[in-house]
């Protein structure tokens, strides 16, 4: 299309020099229109070509359809699983940048913040000015501050709920914490936790690994109450905060860890293995909160036995697809029946819909003609017997009685 518009005026510079001699020098320079994906030397006039207008409207509507998803999440924010973050990204055509969702805990969070940003607004305005989109349409391609504020409010409330529920498992937990604190705090925290866990030395680690198994046993048999679990999580959080606050040497934090665990253990009254109980109990909370359906202990079916959407493979697919003689006995019938059976298997035809009086072809002993004939013969015979008996009875009566004419009968009656 653009090519035709180009070929229409093969020497556009001459035309343009006639029309506006002021921008003569500019016209000879080519520039790339990224909407039409085309190099042109039309200058600003290009924006008014019908092809450009058409492609610009399709370009904008395409991007708007992409924004529709983001606007949905703007209205009702939802948590973003960290493993799905890589899928959830979009290309901002105005800023020509890829907006990824890495490190955001809500769906399209980064996208929304990008759309609300001043940079995006500036780029958008430039784009609209350059390609003639119309400044009144700018609001469609960005997120207003009011909307962003609402969204953030919603996010915070959701986050709080999530934190109180603690239902999303250990993976979401820390990402919620990111929101509570500032980013660099989180990083700090992360480093700290790593530091404290690794060089904590040999002793606590040994304790953990040793006691994990014993504890898990005692857990299964013993307490499953939520209070203790909450306590445990609280303890963990407080421990983290302590670790955060007390920017001290590693030994110190280690000591704190020990103290916290010990206290918790005393509160629960569950022996010396309290340090590891926390871990095992958290896993159990995850199971308890998520399942609702049951787990191994409650005898629920394992997830890979999900019968609802199980793909049922038919064991009898097809006998053997070999080259069969087309002149074999009942070839046509076999082909027809095969299709019927296939349809019955798929449920398109009701199975066994043939009538009860169906009979196979059968050649009888004293029979000439096709097999079908003997079947018809038999069907006639089965209907006949009653008729035969009636006929025979009639015959016998007639044979027994000699013929009496009407007149004679009348006479006899009169007499």
């Amino acid at each position, binding site marked *: 299309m653009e090519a035709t518009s180009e070929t229409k005026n093969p020497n556009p510079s001459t035309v343009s020099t006639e029309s506006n001699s002021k921008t003569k020098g500019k016209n000879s320079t080519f520039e790339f229109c990224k909407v039409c994906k085309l190099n042109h030397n039309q200058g600003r006039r290009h924006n008014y070509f019908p092809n450009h207008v058409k492609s610009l409207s399709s370009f904008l509507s395409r991007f708007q359809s992409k924004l529709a998803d983001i606007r949905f999440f703007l209205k009702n924010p939802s948590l973003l699983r960290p493993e799905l973050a890589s899928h959830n990204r979009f290309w901002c055509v105005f800023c020509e940048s890829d907006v990824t969702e890495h490190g955001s805990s809500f769906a399209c969070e980064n996208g929304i913040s990008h759309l609300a940003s001043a940079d995006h607004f500036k780029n958008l305005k430039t784009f609209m000015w350059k390609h003639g989109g119309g400044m009144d349409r700018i609001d469609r391609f960005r997120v207003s501050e009011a909307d962003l504020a609402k969204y953030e409010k919603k996010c915070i409330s959701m986050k709080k709920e999530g934190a109180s529920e603690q239902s999303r498992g250990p993976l979401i937990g820390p990402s919620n914490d990111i929101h509570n604190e500032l980013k660099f705090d989180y990083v700090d925290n992360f480093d700290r936790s790593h530091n404290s866990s690794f060089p904590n030395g040999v002793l606590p680690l040994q304790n953990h690994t040793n006691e994990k198994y014993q504890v898990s046993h005692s857990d299964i048999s013993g307490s499953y109450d939520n209070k203790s679990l909450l306590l445990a999580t609280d303890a963990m959080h407080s421990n983290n905060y302590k670790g955060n606050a007390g920017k001290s040497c590693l030994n110190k934090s280690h000591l704190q860890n020990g103290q916290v665990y010990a206290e918790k253990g005393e509160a629960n009254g569950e022996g010396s293995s309290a340090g590891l109980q926390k871990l095992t109990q958290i896993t159990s909370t995850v199971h308890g909160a998520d399942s609702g359906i049951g787990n191994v202990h409650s005898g629920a079916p394992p997830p890979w036995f999900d019968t609802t959407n199980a793909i049922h493979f038919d064991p009898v697919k097809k006998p053997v697809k070999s080259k069969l*003689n087309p002149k074999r006995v009942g070839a046509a019938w076999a082909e027809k029946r095969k299709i019927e059976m296939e349809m019955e298997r798929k449920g398109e035809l009701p199975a*066994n819909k043939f009538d009860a009086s169906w009979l196979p072809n059968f050649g009888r002993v004293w029979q000439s003609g096709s097999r079908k004939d003997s079947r018809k013969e038999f069907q006639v015979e089965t209907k006949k017997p009653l008729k035969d008996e009636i006929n025979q009875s009639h015959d016998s009566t007639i044979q027994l009685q000699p013929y009496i004419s009407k007149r004679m009968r009348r006479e006899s009656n009169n007499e």
Partner: protein
Amino acid sequence: MSYLLRTLTKKEEVDSMIRDTIDKLLVLRFGRSSDSVCLQLDDILSKSEREVSKFASIALVDVDSEEIQVYIKYFDITLIPSTIFFFNAHHMKMDSGSADHTKWVGAFHRKQDFIDVVEEIFRGAMKGKLIVNCPLPPERIPKFQLLYKDV
């Protein structure tokens, strides 16, 4: 012996067996499992079922069942055991030198005889023949006397 093979007692079962056996020979044995000759035949059938399973399927039909009577009448079964062969819902005949070509009356002498007969009928059917000659020597074909009602 009958528990080794599928026993049909209803007309619909026989119908669907005949209709759904496609491009395979269907062997229907009409008889009753208490009969000694039937037992002998059933033994041969059950032993050879696996060997002929690629081109034939075997089923037993109980002649004492009420719903089967229409087939008993249709197939003119007067002696048990009677074995009838079908291919693609078409009746297969065999000329064995006896009076009745429509069915095999009596038991086979040995397993190989049955397999030979089944194979011969299958080969004939694949060539489009509705009647085949019996591959067995006459001394191994059971003799019987047909008594016709009207003759």
